[in-house]
């Protein structure tokens, strides 16, 4: 079965209006109040490391959008969000978007949603396709690169390109997360010095057991927690 959009022109206009009329989050909270709340939960020693971290997230689907939300919530200071695609209705079964976001670029929609959690996170967006050609320059400012693509050839390209051309960056990737098999099949593995792999390693989507929020979320949070561990100085999986 293929999903066919059925929105009326009025609904499409209403979505755009809703997207354009989010409150300015900097009028809702001060930098000091957010900082104080994070310190209350994490302590200054931990928060200072999170504040200073630069993480690139490649792909803003079920993995990347969920990872970005988790990292924003704990106050990771600098996020670089990369995706060329727009939000589609079939994304809402697992991705951190809302009805107002339909039709928008994922980079722009996710940045707006993250700003409603913490408007003081430094977010850079690139609405581009990641290729072998741009990998060497795209991640200039990041210490940690998160692979969160959907298409296996894109996952493979990014992982190989980073390991070949940026061997000193930390790389966290994922594969095998479809359906509703046991969460306990999912693991995080340190493949080599700077290369981490999360997922069950094998489960691709099939009819009746496609990509669903709970299990994709388990893998996304494996990636997010590995990134958090690296920021805080833990290198073991």
């Amino acid at each position, binding site marked *: 079965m293929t999903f066919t959009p059925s929105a009326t022109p009025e609904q499409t206009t209403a979505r755009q209006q809703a997207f354009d009329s989010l409150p300015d989050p900097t009028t809702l909270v001060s930098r000091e109040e957010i900082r104080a709340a994070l310190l209350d939960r994490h302590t200054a020693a931990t928060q200072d490391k999170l504040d200073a971290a630069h993480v690139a997230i490649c792909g803003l*689907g079920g993995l990347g959008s969920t990872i970005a939300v988790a990292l924003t919530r704990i106050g990771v200071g600098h996020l670089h969000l990369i995706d060329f695609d727009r939000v589609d209705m079939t994304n809402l079964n697992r991705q951190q978007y809302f009805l107002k976001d339909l039709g928008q670029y994922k980079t722009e929609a996710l940045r707006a949603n993250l700003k409603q959690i913490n408007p003081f996170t430094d977010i850079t967006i690139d609405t581009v396709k990641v290729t072998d050609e741009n990998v060497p320059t795209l991640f200039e400012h990041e210490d940690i690169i998160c692979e969160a693509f*959907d298409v*296996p050839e894109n996952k493979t390209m990014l*992982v190989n390109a980073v390991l070949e051309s940026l061997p000193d960056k930390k790389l966290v*990737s994922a594969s095998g997360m479809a359906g509703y098999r046991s969460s306990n099949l999912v693991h995080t593995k340190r493949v080599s010095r700077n*290369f981490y792999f999360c997922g069950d390693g094998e489960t691709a989507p099939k009819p009746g057991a496609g990509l669903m929020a709970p299990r994709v979320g388990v893998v996304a949070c494996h990636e997010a927690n590995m990134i958090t561990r690296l920021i805080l100085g833990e290198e073991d999986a």
Partner: protein
Amino acid sequence: MIVNGQRETLEAPISVTELIEERGLRPERVAVELNGDIVPRNKRSEVMLHDGDTVEIVTFVQGG
């Protein structure tokens, strides 16, 4: 040779490309590390594997 943690006997040296083919894997869906370092994609047919090597083959399926 150890492949993904499993000990295997290698009768004669083979290339990384041959290892990928032998296992029925698609080259555009794998990353191969030899003794902790990536085997660059453009070097897979010339990098030879020997008994005693440790190889990690990471395969990618759809989903994200």
